[in-house]
């Protein structure tokens, strides 16, 4: 999970590793992800979003590609 100066650089990074470029995320989108995951993390009752919630969270900020679907990410 890295920052990149541009889409061109993402493509170069992926080409160098022979991997497929993934959906790009803008900084406003990343901030919304950060607030959703972490704004209450220091509080006792906070918890990590569950898979069913995660899909909705990503979709609400325009990230609806299957890449963002936690699928079988089951836990606790």
């Amino acid at each position, binding site marked *: *999970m*890295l*920052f*990149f*100066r*541009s*889409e061109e*650089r*993402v493509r*170069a*990074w*992926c080409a*160098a590793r022979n*991997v497929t*470029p*993934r959906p*790009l*995320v*803008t*900084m*406003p*989108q*990343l*901030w919304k*992800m*950060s*607030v959703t*995951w*972490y*704004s209450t*993390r*220091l*509080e*006792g*009752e906070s*918890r*990590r979003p569950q898979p069913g919630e*995660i899909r909705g969270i*990503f979709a609400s900020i325009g990230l609806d590609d*299957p*890449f*963002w*679907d*936690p*699928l*079988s*990410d089951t*836990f*606790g």
Partner: protein
Amino acid sequence: MSAEEDVRVKVAVYRHFADTARRPEIADIAARTGLDHGRIRAALASLRAQRLLLLEPDGETIRMAPPFSGVPTVHQVEVNGIAYSANCAWDALGVVASLQQAGRVRSECGQTGEPFEIAVGRDGPEPTSWLFHCLVPAAQWWSDLVFT
């Protein structure tokens, strides 16, 4: 082990990171919770199962308490004069979000190493064309969180 002790240990771990920017040792957690070594270890294991912590193989050294990193990283965040290490680009903004104060993120371009610095207010980062890219699909993030 109890859910109540899990919460006490979780809050102790996160408050220690927030206050010091360093991972807590067992003694630090004991000082904040009053729990003994065995109960703290059990709570850490439970928090790992809940995907709130990542532990080293010894079962008690904290590698990650997302968004905080227990080891130095390239993703540095300054808030209130304290320098934190974040686990990744997402967590760099996450440190600011978790502390609910303005901060400054310093990192780099994954491809070229060009320095990246951005001010992040309580309402979010200043405008920028820089992007975030994640290689690993969401369903596999915790399969190898350090790689992710």
